[in-house]
């Protein structure tokens, strides 16, 4: 698993094949400064395959990337989806009054392919799984999200570890005097970072405090490493820094009032 995320040097004019979860990738570096990338999501098993020399299937289309001066190195990095994720538990979960619980949500990662190690040499981003679209909000106002079913497991060890998943620890506190049924939860994954701990990929903690049906829940994204893996290393920053997004949300509200 560690090798998958490390930079690799590829020989020219040779196809290399990787597999992560259902996603299979083929990459080739040509004599000119050009990379060719092909992928599909047809793998039935969930294993990880690292850098096999294997030709791309003939019927699979590829995309070409041309650089002014590319290196021979390629690197994969995990990223979270580019939109918020609406999480639906497979079975309803009830939190009694003044109860705090931790749940883990497994999110399919977006695979970023870099030529070399520079941030500005991003070739492409490939979702390892295609998530269906959904809407969070009412038909007049809301946001487009990805839909995700979760078993909402309580412990990270309960998961069958899959290499293409990032695990998000969600702490939910019911701060009311009545039981709260958690049915749908919208997680703004574009504000989360990705950490690597041993063979796991985790995000920073998400803490949600439910304070009533009519009031918006308080959401806090922890600034540091996930609390269950203090020795983890950050390998991907958030797509949108939290402060900017909170500011954006505030101004969106003001925009609604003033209609400008």
């Amino acid at each position: 698993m560690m090798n998958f995320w490390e930079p690799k040097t590829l020989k020219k004019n040779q196809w290399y094949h990787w597999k992560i979860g259902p996603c299979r990738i083929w990459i080739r570096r040509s004599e000119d400064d050009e990379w060719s990338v092909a992928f599909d999501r047809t793998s039935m098993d969930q294993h990880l395959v690292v850098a096999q020399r294997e030709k791309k299937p003939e019927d699979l289309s590829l995309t070409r990337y041309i650089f002014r001066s590319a290196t021979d190195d390629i690197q994969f990095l995990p990223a979270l989806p580019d939109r918020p994720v609406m999480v639906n538990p497979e079975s309803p979960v009830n939190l009694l009054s003044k109860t705090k619980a931790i749940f883990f949500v497994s999110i399919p990662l977006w695979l970023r392919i870099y030529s070399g190690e520079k941030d500005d040499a991003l070739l492409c981003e490939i979702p390892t799984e295609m998530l269906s679209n959904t809407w969070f909000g009412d038909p007049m106002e809301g946001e487009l999200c990805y839909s995700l079913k979760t078993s909402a497991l309580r412990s990270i060890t309960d998961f069958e570890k899959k290499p293409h998943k990032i695990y998000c620890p969600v702490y939910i506190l019911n701060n009311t005097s009545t039981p709260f049924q958690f049915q749908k939860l919208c997680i703004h994954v574009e504000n989360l970072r990705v950490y690597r701990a041993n063979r796991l990929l985790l995000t920073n903690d998400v803490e949600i405090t439910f304070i009533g049906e009519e009031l918006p829940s308080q959401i806090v994204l922890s600034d540091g490493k996930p609390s269950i893996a203090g020795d983890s290393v950050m390998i991907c920053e958030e797509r949108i820094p939290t402060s900017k997004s909170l500011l954006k949300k505030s101004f969106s509200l003001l925009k609604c009032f003033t209609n400008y």
Partner: protein
Amino acid sequence: MFDLGFEKLAKPEILYTALKVVIILACGFLLLKVLNFSLGKITKRRFSQQSSMLIRKAVFYTGLFVIIVTVLRQLGFNLTALLGAAGVAGIAIGFASQTSISNIISGLFLISEKPFSIGDIIRVGDLTGIILSIDLLSLKLRTFDNLYVRIPNEHLIKSQVINITRFPIRRLDIRVSVAYREDIAQVRNILLDISAHNSYCLDNPEPLFVIESFDDSGIRLLLGAWFSKTDYLALKNSLMLEIKERFDRERIEIAFPHISVYAGSKTQPFPVEMVETHPGGEDDHEKR
């Protein structure tokens, strides 16, 4: 020989006035252009496209009026008399331009109501198109087959206007009739399964399934699938195709108009005769 009086024009005072007028016009228009351009950049960031256009037009026409009045004063016209004459002419013009004034007033109401804005897709009667501009007298649309349509504001105020892209999501209603012999529960499951696997169909709000009516030839069903407003064509084509293919695969009959003739329990079976047709077009029956 004819005396055209050019010598009078060559007098220094007249030349001086003419020069002043030319400078006023040149500088005035240049200043107006620069002001218009700067306003465009400033207002685009802070206001909607529509408001920005209105502000620029208001400033431009005000500036133009100021330039014309200045030029007229330089040329020595008595503006008081002119305004008096304009008042009388205004009444005459007012009667003649009732429609235009009605359009202007309708335009102002439309602007304040904001039922739509530039870039929205609207339907007016049987016309559907993207709004290019909302002007004082009329609205300009570009239809999807690239026609340019001008609609007077007065017509818009009096008509029903549908703003298709006002809200971020929409529901596509597909009506399909199935034969009476079909298992409706199975059809329901199939339609909802198709929606669940369609990448353009939103999971939430959940797709709607309704048994609408028992028609003459079949049972009419409604499938309502929600989608992001930009995915209309992609969703419609993919859903219709998937429904047809799946129905064919599951041998579900899509009802078509037909009439069964039945005269009661005493009816004898209808006689059926097989007729061979010859290449000439005549059949055996006609020959007999």
